[in-house]
């Protein structure tokens, strides 16, 4: 089962990297969205997969009676989902503002901060 | 979205959703639920009310600016972790008390206040963003 999910994670990463290599911000944003999911799935897989046995320790015991699902990756993923969700929201707003302000969504044409026709520094007084 | 039916039912629906969000938040300690999802439900209630009635009514109903509410939630969450200082325990150690109010034993704990803080943060920040977007 881990092997199948690993392949799926690989496909997710391939898709996201392909999208992020685009010149257009909206595709980069889509790539980042897929990347976040790829990472979540990767953490889930690296925590090892298990049937849906809740990790609850019965009263009077100190360890669970048998093997249980690993709760830690789920906590990590929950954190990562919230963070990547808020970042994606921010980036979408930023990309939209950039499109409004700069009039382009092509990052090659975004040269306001680094003008292409900049002078060379003076070599003497 | 100025349809009569939506406008008339929206306040009741919003009130119901906020009540439900509080319920979801409070049951979150031992059951599915919690501050994050409760905050999302409350934020969607305000968003819906904003779509139905207009943003200025939501702002008036909220009274405080949503971002201030979110900041208060952050302070509440952080402070709920500090209480364990007085018990000589590390940060974020949960503290419980079981007062009997009108014959019912009520469990009051710092995780509950932490969750309420999360509820306020999520509700405040998402409402703030949504209202800003609805205004545009």
């Amino acid at each position, binding site marked *: 089962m881990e092997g199948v999910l690993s392949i799926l994670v690989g496909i997710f990463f391939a898709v996201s990297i392909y999208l992020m290599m685009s010149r257009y911000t909206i595709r980069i944003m889509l790539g980042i969205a897929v990347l976040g999911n790829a990472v979540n799935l990767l953490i889930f897989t*690296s925590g090892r997969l298990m049937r849906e046995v809740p990790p609850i320790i019965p009263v009077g015991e100190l360890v669970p009676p048998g093997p249980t699902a690993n709760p830690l990756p789920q906590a*990590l993923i929950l954190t990562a989902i919230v963070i990547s969700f808020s970042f994606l929201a921010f980036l979408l707003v*930023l990309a939209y503002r950039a499109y409004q302000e700069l009039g382009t969504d092509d990052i090659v044409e975004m040269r306001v901060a680094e003008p292409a026709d900049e002078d060379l520094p003076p070599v003497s007084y | 979205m100025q349809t009569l039916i939506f406008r008339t039912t929206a306040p009741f629906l919003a009130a119901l959703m906020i009540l439900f969000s509080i319920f979801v938040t409070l049951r979150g300690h031992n059951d599915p639920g919690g501050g994050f999802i409760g905050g999302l439900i409350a934020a969607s209630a305000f968003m819906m009310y904003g779509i139905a009635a207009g943003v200025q009514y939501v702002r008036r109903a909220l009274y405080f600016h949503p971002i201030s509410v979110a900041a208060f939630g*952050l302070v509440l969450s952080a402070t709920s972790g500090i209480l364990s200082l007085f018990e000589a325990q590390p940060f974020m150690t949960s503290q419980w008390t079981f007062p009997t109010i009108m014959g019912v034993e009520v469990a009051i704990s710092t995780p509950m206040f932490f969750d309420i803080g999360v509820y306020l943060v999520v509700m405040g920040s998402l409402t703030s963003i949504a209202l800003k977007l609805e205004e545009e």
Partner: protein
Amino acid sequence: MAGNADNAVDFAAGMLVAPTSAVDWLIVAPTLITIIGGASLVMLRYQAKWHGYLTCFFLAMLVVVDAILLARVMEHGPLTMTMGRWMPPFGISLVVDALGALMALISAVVALTVCVYSLADISVTSTRFGFYPSLLWMMTGITGSFLTGDIFNLYVWFEVMLISSFGLLIVDGERVQIDGAVKYAVLNLMATTLFLVTTGYLYGAVGSLNMADIAVRLREMPAGAAPMGTIATLYLLAFSMKAAAFPVNFWLPASYHTPKIAVSAIFAGLLTKVGVYALIRTLVLVMPEGRDLLSDVIAWIAALTMIFGAIGALAQNDVRRSFGFLVVGGIGSSMVGVAVGTEDAITGAILYAVNSILVMTALYLAFGILMRKNGGKYNLADLGGGYKASSWLSILFLALVFAASGLPPFSGFWPKLILVEASLKEGYGWLAFAVLLSGFITTIAMGRIWAHAFWRGGPIGTVDGRDAAPLYTLSSVVRHRVFVPVMALVAMIVYIGVNPSPVFSVSQYGASTLLKPDHYIAAVFGPVAAQRTVMNEDHATAEGQEDAGAAKSRGPNSNRANSNRANSNRANSNREGAH
């Protein structure tokens, strides 16, 4: 403390029951001060005029707390506190060692100076937009990164730092800022996501997220049991991206010159150094095996970064972008220490990071003063007459030029000396040469900036500045607010240059803790070991606890000898039960 009296649980099996002294709360105090400070500023959003002063107050508190923390670490060794008293490695541990405490203290000092400068630099509109809360929350992320002992927690602090830095970067919403922010945001988000990917792999391979625990487990694993090469390479890539090392550095000069100069200053000072810190922390403390594998790669990256940064600084007309490349070059110097990897080299890397934090912040701030005086000009061709307008400023700037180039008697000299010496001792002659070469090119670049901006009479096209537009004089309030921070930073730079031994001994102690992490590990697991000793004495018949403790008892037991000092008092007072 038990939830319900009828099903009481023996907390001592999974939680630390020893009382925590109030002094230990200093470990969480830095993050708490900044979080609550930022949140209360947001609640006071209609009193914008108080924001600056309150932020300075909170940051001054942060400086005091970090200073006490550093003093305690130097006295008692690494300190630790595990959240919610869960037993390490299950709870999130905050661990302060000399490296973390030193970096936290220097960052707090720099943030305080920048805050004082911001009183003059930040407009009311930007304040309303939330400049000061973002600044405080960014400090939460930065100090949290320095103080945490949990690798996933480090990721969370990175994100806190990142999202508040977005707020600072676009605080005015100008076109140029949005352009810079797009590149900054996308590339930094990729870097932190890569960090998360690697953490996922590490967790899959080792099964723990606590840095001390990972360090113990990796040292006990047979060679080749974990894909160390992959994990270390991915960490190197992720943190190089954060730190703007050579092949992945282009976001930095594209964005750091766009915001207000105070924001540029604190970004240049702190953000990249958090990347360097994380690199040192993961590769040297947590997985030395990975560092050994990659040392040649890191050496090449360091050399290319240094040379590239220096040459880039030479090629820019915009002085602020030139400084951006200098930041990149400084990262290379710190990475030299990671590449060489001896105690001296790591000491040099830490010292250089400290120097770079102070110098880069001060450079941006000093140049900001000049920009205030000349009406916002920043191109080298348009500058001139700085000495005539303010001889003080030109002297301060000259000191910074020397410090950035690594010339004595300023703070940049000692780390470079140590790094060159350590490289030569380990047979990295070419790396030592690269350090010196980049220092030489930096000297040219910086000397040219100083000569053009301050020494010559006026811009190109004027006859010795006689027909140049005169520079403004600043009102006395503004003058104090902008000069005091720069003077304080330069004073520290001179002090470290003249008397390096205090900072040197702290850095050396930090480096030795990293290379021989027994004390670090003992600090995290010491309380567990002490508690277990008491428990075994008390209930010798408790069988169940053996199972629960077997998985995690290796680290503490092997290191208990080292933790006597830190834990004897805890072990004695361990009888306070939870039930």
